[in-house]
């Protein structure tokens, strides 16, 4: 059997963390903060990768698990993916680079979490429907203007909300804060 040249465990971690979200191709799972652990057995051929779901119903999780196994195989490891639920993921786990990656795709990084006890936010009063929309707490990822409004708290995927920029007129997604 021909085996890809096996790399050091540290590099395996890099390889695993470089797997990207199938729905947000500039965002790696490392920057999303969903890789919880990685261990390699004594012989150094088998790896266990622990990941955590972002949103409970996110269908991308299964694709990411498959991509992790493929990526590990590419560098000579047979990997098994374990899903851990604790502690639950929140958008605070996104790295600074992850927030930049979202910005590059014109997706606004998550704003303050609703009801966050840390206090950098608290409930943001909004209205719903076609009435004058409420000022958002997020800046436009295209032109940078703060003059934006929330159109819908639920967007194109489980993890996004829909906004519009009043300055440049473009609608945009926000990676919603939980």
């Amino acid at each position, binding site marked *: 059997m021909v085996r890809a040249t096996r790399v050091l465990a540290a590099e395996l971690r890099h390889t695993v963390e470089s797997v990207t979200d199938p729905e947000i191709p500039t965002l790696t799972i490392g920057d999303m903060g969903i890789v919880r652990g990685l261990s390699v057995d004594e012989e150094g051929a088998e790896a266990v990768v622990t990941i*955590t*779901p972002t*949103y*409970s*119903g*996110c269908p991308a999780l299964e694709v990411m698990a498959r991509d992790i196994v493929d990526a590990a195989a590419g560098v000579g490891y047979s990997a098994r993916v374990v899903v*851990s*639920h*604790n*502690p*639950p*993921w*929140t958008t605070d786990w996104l790295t600074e680079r992850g927030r930049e990656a979202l910005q590059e795709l014109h997706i606004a990084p998550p704003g303050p979490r*609703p*009801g966050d006890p840390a206090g950098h936010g608290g*409930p943001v009063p*909004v*209205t*719903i*429907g*076609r*009435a004058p929309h409420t000022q958002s707490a997020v800046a436009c990822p295209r032109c940078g203007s703060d003059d934006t409004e929330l*159109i*819908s*708290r*639920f*967007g*194109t995927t*489980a993890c996004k909300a*829909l906004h519009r920029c009043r300055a440049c007129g473009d609608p945009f997604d926000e990676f*919603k804060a*939980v």
Partner: protein
Amino acid sequence: MSAPYAPAVLALADDALIYAQRLGEWISRAPQIEEDMALGNIGLDLLGRARSLYTWLGTVDGTDRSEDDYAYWRDEREFRHVHLVEQPRGDFADEMIRLLLVASLDVERYAALAAATSPVDETLAGIAGKALNESRYHRDHARLWVVRLGDGTEESHARMTAALERVAPYVSELFTDTVADQEAVLAGVGVYPSSLRESVLGYVGAVLTEATLDPLPEPSWHARDGRIGVHSEACGYLLAEMQHLARSHPGATW
């Protein structure tokens, strides 16, 4: 291995699965496309939490069942959800009252579950913690609609008032304690639904006031016994639709 609180968790999982199925029915039928997506998304969150809970149950209740075994291969009498979540999709006003009630209850009961299980069962505590965060978002969505419709036009106010009448008989069952709850409480990881009544209905009542609506009316009858598998006529039709594909093609995978 069998956890004494597994039967109480099964009730939570069934509430989530059955309500997810009803919410999914709104896709293409909500008043606006953003709302199709919103209700679809909330349903997806509930489905995801049901899957995690069923997977957890299969490892602790001694049956080694998969999530699909729970969802597709149990019959009506084996489901433990409340009558409220199985009722057919009605007026949008009814749905917003139902969502406000279910999400408000979920916020309280998942908060209690996360706190109670965190020292003893970190998987369950993690699932509950995530469910809590998501339910806060769902509850806020329902609150915004209830306020907007209640304090809206004459027509929307009248329809919200009629919806409250229709939903009221299903409320008391949400706070009825069962043997499963007692087992969980005795094991130190449960919470009596009756103990959440005040906080849940307090929240709902405050929203109704903000929406210029009357409080939940006192109903002339009460739904009961969903938690012991006695369901309304609507449940069989729902399960038939949900389970038919899996039962027609056993073992089929994507």
